[in-house]
């Protein structure tokens, strides 16, 4: 689908610039709130959620340096060793914003895949033409399942409703149910 250049939002550019760098270093998915926003949901978000396949410290340091050259900065630290050891490998997310904007949003919240569920989402990642973005997302079924079964806040249920309507007649309901069972197994039973 063609998108006019004038339709590109600041958020589109931020996400595509970041993902364009990330793709060279690790398979990733963008998930959660931005998926709905990229499909026209009119609500705010400060951050964009990204899950990546775990990478070595050496590779992460290269990634971090490339992101810095690309105009981003990490909110928590400039030290990639610290970011890797104290954050990523401990399951804590790190957050990148554009440089020279006084840490203003938007920000990309990056974390390693933490379980089979995350790895499955990355394995089944896809680009979603309706968004007009060259970015990998988790599947629409996965997004709906997480919003309805795991997150469950009012805004999440509204996101799921929006996606259900936009993708009406194209959704795999069996897949949504399967993912919900896996969410219960991998997340809720702990």
């Amino acid at each position, binding site marked *: 689908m063609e998108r006019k250049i004038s339709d*590109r939002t*600041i958020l589109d550019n931020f996400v595509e610039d970041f993902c364009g760098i990330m793709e060279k270093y690790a398979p990733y998915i963008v998930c959660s709130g931005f998926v709905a926003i990229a499909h026209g949901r009119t609500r705010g978000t400060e951050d964009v959620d990204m899950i990546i396949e775990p990478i070595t410290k050496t590779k992460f340091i290269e990634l971090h340096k490339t992101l810095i050259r690309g105009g981003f900065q990490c*909110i928590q630290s400039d030290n990639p060793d610290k970011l890797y050891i104290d954050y990523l490998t401990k399951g804590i997310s790190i957050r990148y914003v554009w440089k020279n*904007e006084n*840490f*203003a949003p938007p920000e990309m919240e990056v974390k390693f895949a933490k379980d089979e569920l995350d790895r499955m989402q990355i394995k089944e990642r896809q680009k979603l033409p309706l968004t007009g973005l060259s970015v990998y997302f988790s599947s629409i079924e996965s997004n709906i399942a997480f919003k309805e079964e795991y997150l469950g806040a009012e805004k999440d249920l509204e996101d799921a409703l*929006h996606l259900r309507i936009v993708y009406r007649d194209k959704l795999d309901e069996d897949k949504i149910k399967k993912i919900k069972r896996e969410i219960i197994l991998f997340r809720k039973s702990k």
Partner: protein
Amino acid sequence: MTAEKFAPIRDKTHKEQIERWANFVREHPDKWKSEVKPFIDGQIIMARRFYKKLSESEGGTQKILELRNLKL
């Protein structure tokens, strides 16, 4: 406390609007983006403007660090 105190903030028209807009996105894949762009950009432009002003104010840098949950 009366029951009214716990009434939902949003009434059914909120959900109706979500459905109406989602149907518009579905039916007008080439039009919806230009409708939401000002809204999405506006939030970021306003945030940037605020953070810039705050950084220039007395104690503003510390406040930014607190807002972003950072430590010096």
